[in-house]
C-alpha cells in the first residue's frame, strides 16, 4: 500500500474538467513533483487534497485512511501541511505568531485554562516556542522573529510560509510553487532546504513547480499533467523527454 494515494480524482467546474480522473501514489520519504503548463490542474490537485474544493469524484488516501470526506481543518491534524502559490500569511501578525499558528494542531489547552494562563498553558507555550525556534534555525529566519509580515519582502515571506508549514511537524508537505518569485540564490537555498526536509526531517514532499532546474535537482519522481490528465510519470529525465510532454510544452 502506498503512503499517499489519489484514485481517479476529478474536479469539474461545469463543463471544465480541471482535474480529470488523475491517479497517482506517493511513497513514504520521496520527493514527487507535479509539472505541467499553466491551467493543467496542478494547484487544483493541491486544493483537492487540502479540501478547499470537494472533489467531483475519486478518493484520496493517506496512511491507508480515506481522507476524501475529512473537513479541511482535519487534514492538518493528520499531518499534511501546505504552502500556497500566492503566499497566504497572516499579514498583521509577527513572524513568530505566524509560526506559532503552525503549532496549532499540537495545542491541547482548553479555553478556560488559557483565560487564566495556567502553568500548563505556559509550559505548552514554551514547548511550542522551542519547536518554532528549531524551524527558525533550520531556515535561517533569525533576523525576522519580531517583524510584521506586512513589512517583509516577497522572498522572505515565501520562506516564512514554508517555516509555518514545518512548524506543524507534518509527515507530508505540499509545496505549491516554492520557487515562484524567488531569485537564483533564493531558489538554490530552497532546493537545499527541500532536500534537507527529506533527509533530516524525514518529511515526504509533494511539490508543484515550474522551474525545471529545481525539479531536476530535488525530485525522485515527476508527474506531468495537461488539461487535468496525467501525461507521463517517472524519473525527471524520462518525463522531460516523453513525447507527449514535449508536445504539451512546445506544441505538437
Amino acid at each position: 500500500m502506498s503512503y499517499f494515494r489519489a484514485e481517479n480524482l476529478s474536479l469539474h467546474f461545469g463543463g471544465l474538467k480541471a482535474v480529470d480522473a488523475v491517479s497517482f501514489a506517493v511513497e513514504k520519504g520521496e520527493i514527487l513533483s507535479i509539472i505541467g503548463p499553466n491551467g493543467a490542474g496542478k494547484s487544483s490537485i493541491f486544493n483537492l487534497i487540502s479540501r478547499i474544493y470537494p472533489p467531483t469524484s475519486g478518493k484520496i488516501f493517506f496512511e491507508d485512511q480515506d481522507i476524501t470526506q475529512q473537513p479541511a481543518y482535519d487534514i492538518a491534524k493528520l499531518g499534511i501541511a501546505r504552502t500556497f502559490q500566492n503566499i497566504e500569511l497572516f499579514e498583521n501578525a509577527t513572524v513568530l505568531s505566524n509560526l506559532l499558528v503552525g503549532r496549532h494542531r499540537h495545542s491541547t489547552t482548553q479555553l478556560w485554562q488559557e483565560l487564566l494562563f495556567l502553568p500548563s498553558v505556559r509550559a505548552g507555550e514554551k514547548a511550542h516556542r522551542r519547536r518554532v525556534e528549531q524551524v527558525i534555525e533550520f531556515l535561517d529566519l533569525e533576523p525576522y522573529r519580531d517583524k510584521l509580515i506586512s513589512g517583509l519582502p516577497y522572498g522572505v515571506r515565501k520562506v516564512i510560509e514554508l517555516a509555518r508549514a514545518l512548524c506543524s511537524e507534518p509527515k507530508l508537505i505540499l509545496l505549491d510553487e516554492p520557487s515562484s518569485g524567488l531569485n537564483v540564490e533564493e531558489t538554490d537555498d530552497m532546493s537545499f532546504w527541500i532536500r534537507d526536509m527529506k533527509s533530516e526531517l524525514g518529511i515526504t514532499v509533494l511539490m508543484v513547480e515550474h522551474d525545471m532546474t529545481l525539479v531536476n535537482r530535488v525530485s525522485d519522481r515527476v508527474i506531468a499533467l495537461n488539461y487535468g490528465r496525467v501525461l507521463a510519470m517517472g524519473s525527471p529525465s524520462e518525463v522531460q523527454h516523453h513525447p507527449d510532454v514535449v508536445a504539451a510544452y512546445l506544441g505538437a
Partner: protein
Amino acid sequence: MRFLFKTDYEDDIRLFPHSGYVYSYGLLLAVLLIAPYALSSYLMSQLVFVCIYATVGVGLMILTGFTGQASLGHAAFLAIGAYTAAYLQQFNVPFPVYFLAAGLLTGVVGALVGFPALRLQGIYLVIATISFAFIVEEILARWEGVTHGNEGMRVKTIQLLGTTVSRDGPPFYYLCLAVLVLTIVGTLNLLRSPTGRAFVAIRDSETAARSMGINVALYKVKSFAISAGITGFAGVLFAHKLSFISPEMFTLQLSIEFIIVILIGGTFSLHGAVLGAIFLVMIDPFLTYLKDDMPGVIGGVAATLGAGTERAGHIQDAVAAFASANGLKGAIYGVIIVVFVLFEPLGLYGRWLKIKLFFQLFPLYKRATFKRQKIYVKSERNR
C-alpha cells in the same frame, strides 16, 4: 531608547516586557485607585461609564479587532446582560450569581448568533448583526411579562457581602474597575495562547487558518461567545449604573457608539478599546457644553465685531437652532469616524505609538515609519 536583550522564551510570553511597564501600569492603577477621593462626583460618574464602555470595547475588540468579524449588534448583548440582571433581581438572587448568570446567558446567545454568522462576511455580517439587535430590541419591548415592555425596569442597588453598593459611591467604581482589569488580563492571556492566535489567523486568512488545522467555524463561534459574554457582564454594571433600563436605551445608536470606541481607539489593540471609551464618554459633556454655551459665545463675538445687537441676536438664535437640531450628535459621530478612518486609521493608540517613537528616536523620527505598504499578491479566489 531601550533595547531588550532576550535570554529566555519567557521574555516573549510575559505580559510586561520590562520593568518600565510594571512601573507605569502600577502608577496608572494607583492613580485610578485614589481617583474617587480626588475627582468631583460628576467626573467619577463619567469614569464609571468609561470602565463600562471600555469593557464592552474589549469584548468587541476580540470579535472585530482580532477575529475580524464586524458586529453592530453589541447593544443587544448589553441589553441581554442588563435585563437578565434586572429580572433575576426580582427573585432576590444574590449579586455574584446573577452577575455570572448574565454573562453566561449572553455568551450562549452570542454563540447562537455566531452560528448563522459563519456563512456571512463583511457587510452581510454587519446587516445580520443589525437585524439581531432589532429583534432583541423588539422582544424587550413586547415580552411584557418578563421585561415590562416600554415601561422599563427598575434596577435595585447591589447587595454585596451584607453591604449596599450605591451606584454613585467609590465601591461601585472599584467594582467596575475590577471587572475591566480582569477582562483585560483575561483577554491578554487569551491572545498569547493558541486560541488568540487562531482568532488572528482567521482575521488575516481563513484559507491559511484552515490549512493549519484551525476549525474556523468553531473559533468564530468561540469568539462570538466570549465577546458577547464580556458585553453581558458590562450590561449588568450598565443596568446598575443607570438604575433604570428600558428598550429604547439599547438602540442601534449604542451599537454604533461601541464601534466608535474600537475604531477611534485603534482597531488592533486593547489600549485602543480603553482610549476609545475615554474619548466617547468624554465627548458627551463636551458636546453638551458646545450646545449650551456656543450660541451665547458666538452671539457675543458677533456683537463685539460690530454686527449690532439685533443681528447678533439672530446669529445667536441660528446657532442655537443648529446646536439643538435632531440627529446632530449622530452627524458629529459620523464625521469623527470618517476623519479617523481617513487620517488616523490606527486610531488614538496609533497616534500614541507615533508620539512615543518620536521621543524615543528624537531627532531621527521619520513619518514614513508607520506608512502602510500596499501589497497586491494575496489571492482572493480561495476565500
